[in-house]
Each structure stands twice: as C-alpha cells, then as structure tokens.
C-alpha cells in the first residue's frame, strides 16, 4: 500500500443500497465487522471483489461498496476462481451460506479448497434455509423439524470445518456473528493468509432457527461454552479460565478442571500446524461434551493455484520465448500454392 493512499474508513465500504435482511438477523453483525476490518487491511478499495451465490447471506455483496458479483446458487467459488486467476492482484472474498456452499455448491467448495486459491470464504452457517423459508440444510441437526421435515430430519449433518480440513483447506477457522472482537480478529487472520481461508461463522436466523447458537452468542454463558484457540497456548476455557482439554488416551480429548493436581502443563497446547488428526479432533469437539472451539483450527502454507499458473506461464514463456501469432499459424507442415 502506498503511503500517500488516503486512509479508508468503514464508511467507504458502505454501499448506497438499503440492507434488506430481517431485523435482528445475524448477517447485520457480520456485515458490520467486515466493513470495519476491510479499511485496515492495507488493500485499495477498488481491489476488493466480493462474490456470492444464492441465499440470504449471498445478498452480502450489494451492501459493501466494492466490486461485487452476485452469482448463481452454489457457484460462487467457480466465479471467484476465474476472477482470481485472471487477476491475482485482487482481494477476492466469498460470502456464502450452509445451503449454498455445502449442498448445491459442495463440489465447488471442496475443489476451491484443494486448489488453495488465495480467496477468503465466509460461510454464514445458520443451519437452515432462510431465503426459501425454512427447509432443513446440510448443517441442520439430525431429527430437526423444519418445513420440509415436519417429522424430523433424517439427514446427518456436515461438520463444515471437518469438511474443509478433509478437502485440504490450508486455513480453517470458526467464529460467531455477534462476537465482534473475535470475528474481526479472525477476519484479519483470514485476510493475512496466503491461500484459501475458510471461515465458518455461526449466524443466527431469528426467523426460522432462532437461538440455534444461543449458548455461544449470549455473553453471560459464552465463555463457559466456547474454547478460544490461540497458537502456542494451552486449551483453557471457562469464565474463570479454570477448565481445559487434555488427552485421556490416543485421539481422546477430555475436559478437566484445573487444580487438584491438574495444571496447565497437562493440557493440550494449540498448534495450528499440527498433524491433520489434531485439527480433525478439534473440529469434532462439540457441546455438550466439549466447549465449541473457535478461532483458527489450522493454518499451513501451501502453493496457491493462481501463483502456480502464473509461474508455469512465465517458465514456459522464458523457455520458448513470447508467443508469436504468425509463427504459430504458419507452424507445422505448411506448403505454398503459387
């Protein structure tokens, strides 16, 4: 970022469009955090592109005053891939939901992750279809009663972070819509990551699935129910920071209370680069047995797709020389008719 650049503020990222989410929707909080984080990233405003699919969350681009592309259902990663490969200098963000990215767009999501394009995926997970008015989603709990499952869902849900890890995600994180300080910090971390950053954000749909995440969202109980992941620090949680996670056996985490012979030294220490099994273990820790881990589960470095493409083009061009159209057309076995 050039030093003469005028400092950006939240206002620069507010579009002139009226926001049309339901009053009380968790999307407002996410929008606000993004608009607060974007100005501080050191990226010129015109280099941001937000791409989305279909659903409540996918209206996101209309409300941020950057370049935006509201695509079709589930296909935001495809469009974003083309944008990023065509111009790797852009900062490309995807706003998507659990239905958009895990159901109709599941294929594109996993392939985007394995390619490790340098794009940021914000998955607004409300465990319900909102825009189509309340059907079960791929993250809805087994047995959940919705409009499309009046007798209870018989679908087992996806665990989005585990899915992202399985697809080779190099940055996998989780946060909460209304927990602004945390969300903003994870957004900054995602922006700083060179590669696909996958961020699952628990988002309350107060119309069709209200209070789905109350135990993590409500300030009074949150600290007892979430586990803050901080690289290099022990897995401690609780309002009084008196509980932690240790291994009771191979691959078996357990919750312990500190004191009575249990000290921080007995606890697991968070390592973002640990073998994948550790990250999977975190992804699968869920209430009521465990606190919900939030923060960065995994962060590793790997070559980005668009960089590899650019380097290959450069290498071939260096070897063969820049393409000459006349030479190309007149190559092969040509003959002259006089």
């Amino acid at each position, binding site marked *: 970022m050039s030093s003469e650049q005028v400092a950006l503020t939240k206002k620069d990222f507010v*579009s002139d*469009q009226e926001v049309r989410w339901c009053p009380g929707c968790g999307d407002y909080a996410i929008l606000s955090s993004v608009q607060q984080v974007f100005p501080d990233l050191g990226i*010129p*405003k*015109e*280099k*941001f*592109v937000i*791409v*989305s699919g*279909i659903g409540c969350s996918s209206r996101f*681009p*209309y409300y941020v*005053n*950057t*370049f*935006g*592309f*509201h*695509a*079709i259902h589930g*296909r935001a*990663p*495809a*469009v*974003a*891939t*083309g*944008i*990023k*490969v*065509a*111009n790797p*200098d*852009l900062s490309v963000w995807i706003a998507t939901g659990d239905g958009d990215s895990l159901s109709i767009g599941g*294929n*594109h999501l996993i*392939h985007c992750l394995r390619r490790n394009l340098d794009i940021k995926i914000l998955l607004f997970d409300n465990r319900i279809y909102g825009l189509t008015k309340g059907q079960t989603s791929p993250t809805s709990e087994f047995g959940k009663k919705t409009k499309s499952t009046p007798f209870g869902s018989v679908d087992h849900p996806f665990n989005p972070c585990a899915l992202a890890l399985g697809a080779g995600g190099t940055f996998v994180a989780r946060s909460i819509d209304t927990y602004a300080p945390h969300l903003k910090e994870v957004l900054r971390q995602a922006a700083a990551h060179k590669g696909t950053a996958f961020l699952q954000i628990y988002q309350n749909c107060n119309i069709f699935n209200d209070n789905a995440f109350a135990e993590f969202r409500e300030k009074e109980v949150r600290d007892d129910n979430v586990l803050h992941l901080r690289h290099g620090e022990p897995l401690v949680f609780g309002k009084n920071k008196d509980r932690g996670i240790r291994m009771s056996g191979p691959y078996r985490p357990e919750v312990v209370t500190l004191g009575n012979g249990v000290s921080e030294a007995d606890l697991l220490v968070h390592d973002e680069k640990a073998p994948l099994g550790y990250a999977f273990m975190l992804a699968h820790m869920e209430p009521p047995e465990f606190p919900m881990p939030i923060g960065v589960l995994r962060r590793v470095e790997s070559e980005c797709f668009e960089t590899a*493409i650019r380097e*290959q*083009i450069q290498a*071939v*061009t260096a070897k*063969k*020389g*820049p*393409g000459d*159209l*006349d030479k*190309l*057309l*007149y190559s*092969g*076995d*040509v*003959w*002259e*008719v*006089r």
Partner: protein
Amino acid sequence: MSTPTLSNATTRVETLDRVVIRFAGDSGDGMQLTGTQFTATTAAVGNDLATFPDYPAEIRAPAGTLPGVSGFQINFSSEEIYTPGDAPDVLVAMNPAALKVNLADLHKNGILIVNSDSFREVDLKKAGCTSNPLEDGSLDGYRLFKVELTRLTRAALKETGIPTKDQDRCKNFFALGMMYYLYHRPLDYSLAWIEQKFSSKRELVQANQLALKAGYAYCEATEIFQVTYEVPQARLAPGIYRNISGNQALVLGFVAASRKSGLKLFQGSYPITPASDILHELSMYKSFGVVTFQAEDEIAAVGAAIGASFAGALGITTTSGPGMALKSEFVGLAVMVELPLVVVDIQRGGPSTGLPTKTEQADLLQAMFGRHSESPCIVLAARSPADCFECAYEACRLTIRHMTPVILLSDGFIANGAEPWKLPRTADLPEIPVRFRTDPEGFLPYLRDPDTLARPWAIPGTAGLEHRIGGLEKSDGAGNVSYDPLNHERMVRLRAEKVERVAWDIPPAEPEGDSVGGLLVVGWGSTYGAITGAVRRARADGRRVSQLHLRHLNPMPRNLAEVLSRFERILVPEMNMGQLAFVLQGRYLKEVERLDKIQGQPFKESEILERILDLTEVS
C-alpha cells in the same frame, strides 16, 4: 476420368482427379494414425482433401469385434472438393470385422486390400462371419488384394530383434507404404515423422520405418498392382496452406483473437468428447499467456470463464451437448450480467450420452432457446474445419463488442475432420477493439452504448468504478436490484434488442448460384460440404438450384426474409429433425422442405443431390 499412360511392360499409371480411401481396422490397429499420415503426405503433395475419422466410443472394445472397428476416410483431389467423399474407391481392411462393417460402402469394382493373415477361424468367429469372405465368393465384385500383412511385416522386421508383438504393431505402416506406392506419394514425410515421434526409442524408429519402406518395396517388387494412380496437385487459390482439423482451427482462432484484442485468454473446460482436444491443444500455448482451467465440472468451467471475463480476460468455455445442458444456468447469468463469454458446443449424437464419438447437429434449438426465461444469445456455426478459425475469431469479436454471450456450434464431423486451410495474414484479421471503462465521471454499470446497447466493461481494480452485478434484475442504467414491473419488461426487451442489433454487424445473406428463382438449399454448420458438392453437381446437370449457408443463426442476416422470398422452394438438409427448418418456418412463415438425417454420420453428397433432383426439373 482417367488417362492411361504406359509405364513399363506390366504396370501402367492412370491419372485420376479424385480418390476416396478408407482405412479400417481394430481400434488397436492404428488406423487413425495411418489415416493422418496419409493425409499429411497428401497435403504436402498439394491435393485438396477432406477427411472423416470415425471411431468407436470405447477406447479398446474387444479386439477383432464389430464394435471395435475404427475407420478413417480421406478424399483427395486435383479439384476443389467439399466432403470426405460418399463412398470409398479403396478400402483397406485389417481384419474381418473391419471388412464386414465397411464393405457395403465400397464402390462396386473398388479396390479392396485385406490382411489375409487375420482371417483365421478365430478372427472370423469374433467378427460373426459364418464363412470366410476371402473364399466364399462374396468379394467377387471387387478388385481384391489379399496381402499377408502380418507375415510380411514380421519378415521385414526379423533383423530388428524387437518382440513379435511389437513387430505386429508396425503392420499399419506396411499398409501405408503400399498405399503410398499405389498413389505415387513420397515416403519422406512419414519417415521424418516416425523419426521424431519415436526419437527416444531407436528400435521403434527403425522398425516402423522398415515396415513403411517394406510395404512400398513389396508393391514395387511383386507388381501386385497392375495399375497405379496419380492425382495431380489441386489448383487451389495461391497462398500458404496447412492441413487443419476443426478443433485445432478453433484453438488458433481463439489465440488470434486474444492477441488481436490484447486480452488474456481464459478457457474453462471439463473433458468431454469430442471437445477435449480443444483443451489439450490450448493448454500447449502458455507462451501466449493462455490460461486453461480444467474445472471440477462443466458448471464450474463456464462459471470461471464468466468470472475471468468480469476481471477483464476473454473468458471461453468449450464442451459438447450434455455439457451445454449443465452450463445453461450460468449462460443465463452471463446474459443477465452482460459480460463477454464464448461457449463452444461440439455437437454429438444425443440425447444424453447418445453417440459420443458420432456427429449430429441437434443442439441448434438448445443454443437458441435452451435456457430458462427470455435469454437470447448470439449463435454462430462453423461450416468446415478451416472455417472454425474464422468463427472462433468472429465469436470473440462479437462477444466483446456487444457484451453478451456467444454460442459457437461445431460438431464431431468437422471437429475431427481436416482440410487444407489457406492461412490468413494476421495483419489482415479484423481489429478487436477493447474499451475498458476507466472514467468514474458519470459511470453507471448499465449505461448503454447508443449503437450496440452494450454496457461498459468496468473491471475490478479500476478506482471509482466499484459496482455490483448479479443475477437479480437490474434497474436500467444504475444497475441496482429492481423488482419494478415496467423496468423488468424494459430490460427483457433491451437484452433482446441488443442481440437483434448484432444483425447490423454481420454481412447480409448472399446465396451462391442464382440470386433469384428455383430451389434454394439452406444449410448451417457442417453440412456445407455435402450441400455444396450436391448443388454444383445439380447445376452442372442443368437444375435451377442455389444455396445459402448460414454462419450467423442468431440473429440471422437482416435480409434473410427477403432472400428466402426470392426463391420458389426452400430445402433445408440437417442432421437433426428439422431444427433450422422449424425456426425458418416460425420466423418467416415460409414453407420449407426438410431433409433430415440422424444417423451419427454426415450427409453424403448423393443423398442431398437425390433430393435436389426430385425437387427440380432440367431447365
């Protein structure tokens, strides 16, 4: 027409103006390779030519069986020719299955060369022959040459020391050598090609070259052919030529358009027959800055191309009919967001998986109407392998100028078929100006060019032009989401008019032949060759018949209604159930005669000629 000349006591040379040869064998016999080698040599000799590779969908169907038969037909001539030929004059059959599948097409008294070593009991059984055709008299009507291809090749390669199995794989070159002798073709091209192809395996270079030379020498020594043939150079228009397949020509057209427009070419694609070669070929041109993206599916392939266009590249996607169906939602989005996009559909037999390696032109209505709601696209169709270059270039020019998607139709026949292509001078190619919007002053994402109605191309990274596009209906001008009923109707009409106005950017229809009266044969796509050949023969026969071949199918040339009205009758031959006929009748209320063929095979000239003769009288 032949002119006999005496060469020596026992053999003589005849001059022919055109010959059709078909090589047929098992898919493992290397018939496609043999055919392309004969083609390349024939191109170098200076004949006009057209080819038709016809192979099974299975990579290796059980050896020796009927489904495993692979064929390659070439028509070469000293005159201008338009098709790979109706029926072969010469059939080279490597086994009983190849003979059985192809014999019916061979001209009576045609030359039939068979590998007699592959007519053992077991081979006959695999091909379902109850008796041996070499002995039962069923080949009496042909000039049969029984050649022990396997034994002779092994004998020629005895000294090489390579395993018998590898020796047997060289017998196609033995057969090729024989054909070079029979038609007075030089061996040099193929010898050099073998040298290059097998450069890392000396013993294979030696073996294949030996086999080729042995086939030639065998004919020379045994004088097996009493007559050999010369086909003189064709009198083609002066220029530099190369032999080109439709898919190769498309690739060069796209690279040329990328160069001329200064836009980075981005191809999103997913492997599908018969379009995959476009991906293979384009992926070699990295030094032209070409990005080829093999996507996870057809949908991502087109989506990424649209994303690339949004970011200022030239986004294209290449597929066949089933892939087109998958892409259609995204093509609708491209119509809505009004960005450049070229979608190439190499049509094949359908519906569903249908006949993946066979040709058809039944996606016209899909291209024109196969999307939800009112979503018109520009539609073009290439008429021959070489024409694919111009059509790819034209598709790019139109999509950039008019900021709306173009669908380019080709088909399996011209995608894989080849013909000589008179190379254009790149300086003569039309300019493709690109004007990215940069000025924020007065910028609105859906402001329209007063001539074309195109909206500005404002790419991310341009300060002050931040804006949002998407699938929701836009307000005209500002481009904000709008549910206003009258705005919607206005936008639907604008998008349609935008495509209609392309008619002023394309040449008017001009019939070949007479400009008025008699029968007009109207075609599109790969039927051009067969229609042209048939119309010329009919005219030579004194019939009042002309032809009109449409490259632009949507919009159609602006004078088309008037042109159609000048003729008494219209005939539309198509490899479908009358799709263009349907459109012409619906749009122009003009009664048309249909000639439909839906066999996975291109038209023969004679099939169209027959119908023309039915519909016309000698004048």
